[in-house]
């Protein structure tokens, strides 16, 4: 891989306001018109983005100490259970944790309410200790009063995702939305040609330490995501990448409600839309070729969510161009396809990130460590106790 420029050179140009930054959508035409070599010579950075429900998300909070202090062991926020297994006033609130009184309200809604500046009700109990004598606390808190708030998401940004259909005789309600009987519809969930890990499918630039846009704040890739299991397969002469994931982190207090939204999927439960943007530095012509991929060249597989076991039947392969047209053909039948990931928001994230790089507010960080190429991937085999 012949290097065209370095991170330092890009950051110098960003500082001077000279960096050429385009979105993952704009680069498609540029690369086609100018050819990858010429395009790579003058484009410094390409921005990618996604805005999808990502269940494996949540926030770490440190409430600060009350007087007398309490070691919080059972914690709820707006009646949503939060983790009580950390130090006295630390907790992790998972996005999918459901309220004990309203199954349509959960951790994601508390997260959104906090970000909107609303007060939420914190309740906690404890056995009481000599150092933490208080046994109960019921109080209102808000984002300003909370000592620390950090978003940490163990798995975001799935590289590619299956298209969900349902071949059974009745509607099913899933994390991929409501799937109509007899392949009545198909739901898909990535931003395709804008998606971060489809624009750097072999992790040439995205690694541990990459600076990213997370829900409006600047954050970092902290590790590979859980279930990170990159694979590649050939479909219709194109390489179909699957399985890469990121774990990400950023200051929750710096985020914006514009790029985060609490969700409730009927019959499934609470989830959260997370907006992630990743800048890709054009260090080589190969990287430029990777980012200039378009929806028509990105394939995914159609999978039957009506199958109630781990291994689901594959009903064919489609590309994102076909999906985005609104109709796909499956086994001779026209099936309406709709996304569950917002392309409009993904585009907005690419654009926002591009502008903040152009203004010199966002610099690129070279990763400290590469993502693992291969990891062992274990299923949970049930053993007798």
């Amino acid at each position, binding site marked *: 891989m012949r290097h065209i420029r370095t991170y330092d050179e890009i950051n110098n140009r960003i500082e001077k306001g000279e960096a050429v930054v385009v979105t993952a959508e704009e680069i498609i035409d540029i690369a086609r018109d100018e050819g990858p070599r010429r395009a790579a010579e003058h484009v410094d950075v390409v921005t990618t983005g996604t*805005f*999808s*429900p990502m269940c494996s998300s949540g926030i770490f909070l440190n409430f600060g100490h009350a007087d007398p202090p309490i070691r919080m062991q059972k914690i709820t926020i707006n009646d949503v259970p939060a983790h009580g297994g950390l130090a006295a006033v630390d907790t992790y609130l998972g996005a999918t944790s459901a309220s004990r009184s309203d199954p349509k309200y959960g951790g994601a809604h508390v997260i959104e309410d906090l970000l909107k500046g609303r007060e939420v009700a914190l309740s906690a109990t404890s056995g009481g200790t000599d150092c933490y004598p208080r046994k109960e606390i019921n109080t209102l808190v808000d984002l300003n009063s909370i000592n620390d708030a950090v978003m940490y998401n163990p798995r975001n940004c799935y590289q590619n995702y299956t298209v969900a259909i349902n071949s059974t005789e009745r509607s099913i309600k899933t994390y991929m*939305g*409501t799937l*109509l009987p007899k392949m009545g*519809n*198909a*739901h898909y969930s990535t931003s395709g040609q804008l998606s971060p890990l489809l624009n750097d499918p072999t992790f040439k630039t995205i690694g541990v330490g990459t600076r990213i846009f997370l829900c409006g704040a600047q954050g970092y890739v902290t590790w590979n995501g859980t279930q990170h299991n990159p694979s590649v397969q050939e479909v219709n002469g194109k390489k179909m990448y699957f399985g890469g994931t990121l774990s990400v982190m950023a200051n929750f207090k710096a985020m914006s409600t514009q790029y985060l*939204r*609490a*969700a*409730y*999927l*009927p019959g499934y439960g609470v*989830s959260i*839309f997370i907006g992630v943007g990743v800048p890709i530095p054009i260090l080589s012509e190969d990287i430029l070729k990777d980012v200039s991929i378009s929806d028509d060249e990105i394939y995914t597989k159609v999978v039957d969510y009506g199958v109630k076991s781990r291994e689901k039947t594959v009903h064919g392969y489609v590309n994102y161009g076909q999906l985005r047209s*609104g109709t796909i053909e499956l086994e001779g039948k026209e099936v*309406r*396809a*709709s*996304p*569950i*990931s*917002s*392309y*409009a*928001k993904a*585009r907005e994230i690419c654009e926002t990130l591009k502008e903040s790089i152009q203004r010199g507010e966002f610099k690129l960080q070279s990763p400290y460590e590469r993502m693992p190429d291969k990891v062992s991937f274990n299923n949970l085999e049930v053993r007798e106790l």
Partner: protein
Amino acid sequence: MKKKLIITFPPENVEKPLVYTLIKDFNLWVNIHRAIIEPQKNGKIVVELRGEADMIEKGISYIKELGIGANELESDVVIDKDRCVDCGVCTSICPTGALKLDKDTYKLSLNYDECVLCGFCEETCPVGAISINF
């Protein structure tokens, strides 16, 4: 010509052969999109009438003379644009294709003419951005 109406009738008028009369006496096509009829409560029907313009008007007058409310249906589907994230998951659930993602902007749009107020979108929307006042 066609017209969409929301017909509201008090419990004592449930027995009137409304649809039959609209078809037989006014030569109208009556397409019932949605109906809620519960004991001791006001009934509501969303209908689409098709036929001659004057016959539609006469049909509506007939309904009103019976003491039954008949109002032209305007937009009773409200999309909260600040809340909506334009994910588009409602578009494949919408039975008539009234909800669509724009091909250029990928933002959600609703064609009220095609909407039959089924309510599937309200139920499906993950962020609670759609409400139906029926």
